[in-house]
């Protein structure tokens, strides 16, 4: 909706009727229909704004909580090359968190506010990060499956109707694809390594496969926000569509890896031209969302501790900046 980039000019030309709620809504709807990007200064429905805040904040939170399961292995990485790759990845995630908080701030909320909500458990992060990383191979499984699922979800977001979000996703997807390839390559090295390494890789895939499928969210007939988000072009594809796309990509990749996926019902369906897959245990998903996953408490506790232990540092930086400003004035 870049046509309103010069609000002064627009006001001068158009009469006051351009600003009735109906007119604003019509202009917004037309912009969405025409695939024009909505920008921060544009009028938007309150519900559109709050949906975006919810989704983008959750996305940002996922990046920073997502640092924990992988950072868990930085000090124990088995080679210096792998250690460097993992450190770079965790650093990228902090960077993605920063982009996404900035993008969310364009909607009129502050990063501090969002972090407070995360720490209070009032905003969510991706359920996947409530699973533990129990072995080195988990780092590879996260790269291949978790980042793979994230990319499948996020590539369509590069065309999302809200400009700042779409642009953040373009940058993030490039880096995520790189991480995903590295995770795949890590698993490949293990799979082709010693028997113990192969077993470690298979065990990690067994534990991460189903949680990765849950990353696409509830089935279409139970997804509360889907229809509205698709109408607003925040979302471009349904949860089940994206999940199917992901399964179809993963099966041949698993074959190349020499690893199996833990689903006895997984098979090619000639008629549909897709892989059929087994039923997802949605009760587990609901439990994890309710806070009862294996690491929910630990992840949030760690995040709060980092924030609380750092408060004197942030206070010091603020006090120093205030003194410095005063001194310059």
């Amino acid at each position, binding site marked *: 909706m870049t046509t309103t980039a010069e609000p002064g000019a627009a006001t001068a030309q158009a009469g006051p009727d351009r600003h009735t709620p109906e007119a604003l809504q019509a202009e917004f709807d037309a912009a969405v229909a025409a695939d024009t990007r909505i920008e921060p200064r544009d009028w938007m429905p309150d519900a559109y704004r709050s949906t975006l805040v919810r989704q983008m904040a959750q996305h940002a939170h996922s990046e920073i909580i997502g640092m924990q399961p992988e950072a868990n292995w930085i000090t124990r990485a*088995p080679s210096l090359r792998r250690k460097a790759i993992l450190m770079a990845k965790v650093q990228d995630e902090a960077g993605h968190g920063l982009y996404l908080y900035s993008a969310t701030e364009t909607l009129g909320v502050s990063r501090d506010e969002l972090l407070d909500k995360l720490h209070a458990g009032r905003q969510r992060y991706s359920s996947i990060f409530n699973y533990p990383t129990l072995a080195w191979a988990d780092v590879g499984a996260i790269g291949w499956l978790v980042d793979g699922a994230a990319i499948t979800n996020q590539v369509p977001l590069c065309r999302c109707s809200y400009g700042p979000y779409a642009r953040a996703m373009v940058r993030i997807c490039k880096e995520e694809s790189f991480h995903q390839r590295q995770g795949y390559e890590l698993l490949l090295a293990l799979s082709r390594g010693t028997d113990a390494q192969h077993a470690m890789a298979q065990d990690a895939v067994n534990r991460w496969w189903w949680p990765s499928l849950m990353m696409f969210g509830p089935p279409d007939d139970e997804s509360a926000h889907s229809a509205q988000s698709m109408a607003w072009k925040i979302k471009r594809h349904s949860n089940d569509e994206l999940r199917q796309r992901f399964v179809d990509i993963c099966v041949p990749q698993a074959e190349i890896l020499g690893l199996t996926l833990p689903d006895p019902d997984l098979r090619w369906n000639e008629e549909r031209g897709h892989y059929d897959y087994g039923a997802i245990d949605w009760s587990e998903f609901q439990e994890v969302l309710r806070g009862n996953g294996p690491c929910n408490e630990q992840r949030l506790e760690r995040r709060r501790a980092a924030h609380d232990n750092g408060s004197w540092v942030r206070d010091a930086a603020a*006090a120093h900046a205030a003194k410095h400003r005063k001194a310059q004035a």
Partner: protein
Amino acid sequence: MGDDALVLAQRLGEWAGNAPVLEEDVALTNIALDLLGQARTLLSLTGDEDDLAFLREEHEFHNAQLVEQPNGDFAVTIARQLYFSVYQELLYTALAEHGGDLAPLAAKAVKEVAYHRDHAEQWTLRLGDGTEESHRRMQQALDALWRYTGELFQPLEGLGVDLPALRERWLEQVTAVVEKATLAIPQGADHTPWAAGAGRQGVHTESFGRLLAEMQYLHRAHPGASW
């Protein structure tokens, strides 16, 4: 030098996800990555980087005791970074000028280290000249680590750099930052009483064994495997 960079990278890696602000998660990991890169280059000059990192025991490591010191609070980490990055910048500058085998590496690394030093200086200023609490913590951190600084300037044979001569410039630079931060240069010995040479001769502090146990366990559990 490779061990210094490796061990400090390992310590900084422990900060990932635990920093006071997201920007510091990025910065500390960034510094750790630079140091790990330096370590890999330096270790590769003398053998296989992974054999050297994962298959030596405590007494075979030659890093200074300063870099193995636990992270402590953010002030301790910053004090360690200040002492070490000023030293490293002087050392790499001297190596680059000296023109020996290490000159190309040093010339590249000195750019990274200048950034590390700037980061440590900025935080020393913020913490020293911030709140009462941050001032107290920063001074405590500088004091606690002071006794590990002398070791950095022990003469090292074959390096081609007069390390003892660097100490004066190091002290000048560190003093300038510390005083600007309204803090004081610690009084007292810059060596522990029993350890002449210490880390450089393979004599380490207690926490170092645990650092290696964590770093090496997986590699050692799968002898000969490639990763």
